[in-house]
């Protein structure tokens, strides 16, 4: 399979703290990847680098075969091929309908085409009854769904999801996972998911990465890594996770 992201010896600091250290890995295109690790492992920081919101401090980051680090900051066209769902996503003031238009507006979609995409995505996510609702009045699950729909409206190649179900109840989590699960197989997209939920990693990903203190400890097929981790740190983390 072709690579979508390749990281070579990437290190990165945020507010004087080393958040990603000597990170090398290749993310395969069209595949779903889950990133797990304890708090402070650098999962969100890694996702922000992949979302091209920050330039890596050191090392090289490739999107397909383009070296982002040498292109920076001229990487808007590449960033527009990615969809990043932040932990606790923010919806802008206005209605659900207005929010769905934002990514399309930034890309200069003509009004008619925008409306068509908005309607399609509302229907696909079962959000049509909420179209005229103010974003501020939505529940956590609805907000999460609208935020994902807002990304899907511009049809990104890669979905970067940062703990998308962290604050959702079990039913909303189930519903959200169902939406995510259908995406890669049907549309050939790459998904990179940060999660604390090992069950979710197992349900949604084909490849699993375990991070600890900014470093990649090990990676491999999800089922195999969960059953037979090679590293002690991974084993300890998984045992704790399974006990929880």
């Amino acid at each position, binding site marked *: 399979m072709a690579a979508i992201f390749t990281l070579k010896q990437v290190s990165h600091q945020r507010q004087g703290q080393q958040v990603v250290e000597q990170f090398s890995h290749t993310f395969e295109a069209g595949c779903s990847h889950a990133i797990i690790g304890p708090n402070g492992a650098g999962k969100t920081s890694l996702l922000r680098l992949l979302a091209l*919101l920050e330039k890596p401090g050191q090392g090289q980051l490739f999107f397909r075969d383009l070296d982002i680090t040498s292109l920076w900051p001229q990487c*808007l066209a590449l960033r527009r091929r990615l969809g990043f769902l*932040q932990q606790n996503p923010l919806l802008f003031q206005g209605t659900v309908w207005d929010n769905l238009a*934002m990514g399309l507006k*930034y890309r200069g979609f003509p009004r008619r085409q925008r409306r068509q995409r908005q309607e399609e995505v509302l229907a696909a996510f079962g959000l049509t009854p909420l179209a005229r609702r*103010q974003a501020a009045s939505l529940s956590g699950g609805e907000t999460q769904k609208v935020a994902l729909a*807002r990304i899907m409206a511009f049809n990104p190649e890669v979905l970067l999801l940062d703990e998308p179900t962290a604050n959702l109840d079990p039913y909303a989590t189930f519903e959200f996972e169902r939406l995510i699960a259908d995406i890669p197989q049907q549309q050939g997209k790459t998904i990179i998911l940060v999660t604390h939920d090992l069950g979710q990693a197992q349900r949604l990903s084909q490849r699993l990465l375990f991070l600890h203190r900014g470093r990649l400890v090990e990676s491999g097929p999800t089922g195999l890594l969960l059953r037979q981790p090679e590293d002690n740190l991974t084993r300890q983390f998984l045992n704790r996770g399974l006990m929880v």
Partner: protein
Amino acid sequence: METIYLGLIQSVHLLLSGDPELYGIIVRSLLVSGTAVLLAALCGISGGIGVALHAFPGRRLLINILNTLMGLPPVVVGLVVYVILSRSGPLGALGLLFTPTAMVIAQTILATPILAALTVSALLAVKPQVRDTAMSLGATPRQAAWTVVREARFGLMAAVIAGFGRVSAEVGAVMMVGGNIAGYTRVMTTAIVLDTAKGEFAQAIALGIVLIMVAFLVNLGLNLFQGRGAV
């Protein structure tokens, strides 16, 4: 007490009778203050956006200066504008002293720092996540900045209202540079001062009522506007 009571009755009568002098003063006041706030909004809001959304050396000092200038004494502004526009001043040749234009200039100077400082604080109050979200949705830096401004729109409206409130209630500067000329530069506040000095309380009270009503209506408009964007 009787004076106030009689003044109130007569003021209502004046307002209802459509007295041309009274309404001339009201319209002039709204035109002068409205124009000044419009000009101040252009300078203050754009300046405030520049200060709030860009990092540069001395930014914090500039914000402190803007906050200090919010309390600019109107008589000092009146004095400075008077000196500049007086016959011997640098812009004396323009012959603007004791004209509505001079009043607009003075009020614009008073309102601009208020609008700029309140714009800065409204924009700094917007969550940093807004810009981040916009960027992650594919916004250019300019589009992301515009999104931040859009999110602060109620704060910006409040800044405009505060600026209008400040200049429409102001008397010192407009009296100095306008001269309170009947039918030409007399506005509500200067007319109230004059009428009170002459003991003509009816017109003074009527104008006071209108002044309060204007403030109320402007705030009501803001609330309705905010209500449309609220839950």
